[in-house]
């Protein structure tokens, strides 16, 4: 029913012989709200309340040792302090370039390539599809902390397996502390993150590829399209919604990511691999400045909103086209 009609019915005075009983009408009006109430309460408790508390924290000087509600109101001072700190901009650059851009692009390219490889008929013919999928999923099954611990050992400058192999093969004279040198620290963090998180992208792309109707490929083949043209004109356009959603999800996940940098380098060497999430943590829980930590969190959220808006606009426009 159009909303105008609903409004008319709701505001029309009752007609003499068949008056609508007031309580019943009220009940009917409030029913949608009552039905929605549990969801709204849950959303409020789980999302709106923490966000509101975070905003409150960002406007106060407060430590992790203070009781709930304790703190001194400082207005926007925490935001000024965070945004005028040169370390925030270094962390921001690392977050955007290395942690997000590089790892997202790598995962999308490698993920798509692997998904297409896993779709090849030859794997099915040789009964290797299950094995290949299982191997692919392994990194994702390992908890990130365990994965990082394993990689830290593998890449250790003195006792790490990678260095031992490279030294024995004569590639290098002495071990490289991959997480301790400027030239290797970011490629190493990126490698660990991409290795651990790639399976999700591959699985999503495989699902997308399986949903593409085979007649589109058949039609393209009849028209004489090469494999490359088939990929460009059939696969990619069909996968665009999946790429958009996956891209958005892993962008948000990467931008907010804390664990890979914190556990591998703690932001070092020096401050070279500091990112916003690690800066937030160390500000809030090492320096005991919860308010400034919350301000960094809100700045990060604002950036993510921009990312999300761009992604959704571009994605929606292309789907409409």
């Amino acid at each position, binding site marked *: 029913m159009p909303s105008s009609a609903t409004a008319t019915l709701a505001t029309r005075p009752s007609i003499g012989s068949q008056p609508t009983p007031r309580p019943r009408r009220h009940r009917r009006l409030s029913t949608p709200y009552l039905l929605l109430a549990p969801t709204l309460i849950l959303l409020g408790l789980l999302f709106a309340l923490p966000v509101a508390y975070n905003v409150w924290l960002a406007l106060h000087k407060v430590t*992790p040792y203070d009781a709930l509600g304790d703190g001194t109101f400082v207005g926007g001072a925490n935001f000024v302090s965070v945004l005028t700190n040169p370390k925030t901009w270094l962390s921001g650059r690392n977050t955007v370039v290395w942690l997000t851009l590089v790892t997202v692009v790598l995962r999308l390219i490698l993920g798509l390539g692997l998904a297409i490889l896993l779709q090849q008929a030859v794997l099915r013919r040789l009964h290797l599809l299950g094995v290949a999928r299982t191997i692919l999923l392994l990194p994702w099954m390992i908890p990130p902390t365990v994965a990082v611990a394993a990689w830290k050992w593998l890449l250790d400058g003195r006792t790490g397996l990678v260095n031992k192999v490279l030294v024995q093969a004569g590639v290098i004279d002495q071990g490289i502390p991959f997480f301790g040198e400027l030239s290797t620290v970011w490629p190493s963090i990126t490698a660990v993150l991409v290795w651990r998180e790639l399976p999700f992208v591959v699985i999503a792309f495989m699902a997308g590829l399986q949903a593409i109707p085979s007649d589109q490929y058949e039609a393209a083949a009849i028209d004489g399209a090469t494999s490359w043209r088939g990929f460009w004109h059939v696969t990619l356009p069909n996968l665009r919604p999946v790429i958009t959603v996956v891209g958005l999800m892993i962008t948000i996940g990467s931008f907010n990511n804390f664990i890979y940098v914190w556990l591998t380098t*703690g932001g070092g060497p*020096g401050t070279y691999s500091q990112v916003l999430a690690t800066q937030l943590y160390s500000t809030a829980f090492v320096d005991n400045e919860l308010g400034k930590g919350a301000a960094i969190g809100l700045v990060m959220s604002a950036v993510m909103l921009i990312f999300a808006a761009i992604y959704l606009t571009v994605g929606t426009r292309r789907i409409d086209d």
Partner: protein
Amino acid sequence: MRRRQFLGSLAAASAVGTVATLNACSGKSDTSSNGTVNLTFRQFDPPTEIAGLKKVVKAWNDTHPKIQVKLETLAGSADYAQQFAREANSGSGPDVVHLGYVNVKDLAKPKILLPVSELAEKSAPDTPIDQFLALDMNRFDDKVWALPWTVDTFAMAYNKKTMDKAGLKPPTSWPELLSTATKLGKSGTVGFAFAGASNPDAGQWFAINYYLWSNGISLISNESGNWAPGATAEQFSSAMKFFNSFFTSGATPKSMVSVDSINDPQIVAGLADGTTAMTMMAPQTVRQARDTSTEVVTAVMPDGLTDGSTHLGGRSLGINAATDHPDEAWEFVKYLNTAKAFADIPQYPAATTVLDKVDAPDGEEGFQKQLPHSRSFARYIDGPVPVDTLQKLSCAAFGAVYSGQKTANQSAAELVDSIAAAIKG
């Protein structure tokens, strides 16, 4: 009707379950129907190091049927004090809590702990409260908020066989340490291993401070009531160059720039198997290394016999301000500080009357000689900057030099600025 009854029962069961779960999670003491007081004691040392403590708690429970203590371990959590604060602020948490000295002031300020000096007035411990070491770290606003329990410091741990083979003796000054370690490094041995990572909790923090204190400077100092950086940029730069020369001279392998823990397995194992000649270690870690090789022994750190050149660390015992049984909790804290308890707890007691009777285990002579000269971090605790922040800033500044991210002069100037900014708040 049946459906309504079912939903009603479900709701009631959920409510009962929720209340029961919340009660279970609170960890707070209770009194059972037979009048027994149940206390919770939370400690954060690794489970591998608490066999003695478990024995002592069991002995207490056997002899105090009316006050039963449950030992709870929260190991591996860097923010154990903040975790306790969150619980205590909401009226829950353990009754007795194990704390690092540096955390006591943070918990005393919001009055999450009970001042033990007031409890001691009612019932004094075996050792008078003013005869405990590291009391300065546990005092705030003229009250003592937690009772120092154990003390430790970092001594020079070395592999005797490796040093003898090279014809070298443990160094007694920092320049001598560098030259000795360099000689060892040239023969393929790790001369001096130290955790040189830039993490906020990296182990190099202790080496940095020992060096600064030995040279009469510190990270922060109080000059006639005004807090300021405790050294000039030139002095910090000189310290950074000194530590960097361990890497450039080959005395310390470059791989140590990504090692953050002073107890890292490669440091402990290296010292035990003799591929590492020297490092700095806490008593527990020395014992761990000596389990593998008795060639691991200790000496004092360079300049370690000068008062205040090394740190006095350790653990305190605090009582939750929200406990329902402060007197019983205090009785238990007093018991943990007795000579009888320390007969089974393999640590150095903070109670001086008990410490005097302790014989240092084999290989720990370095600790025994150094401890009377060690001083707590009170020189930092009283200041406006959290000790953790000073550790974060200094480890990152020194780490930036080792990796070449910044020159020593650049990094030192930034360290002075960062400390000054932290003082300003």
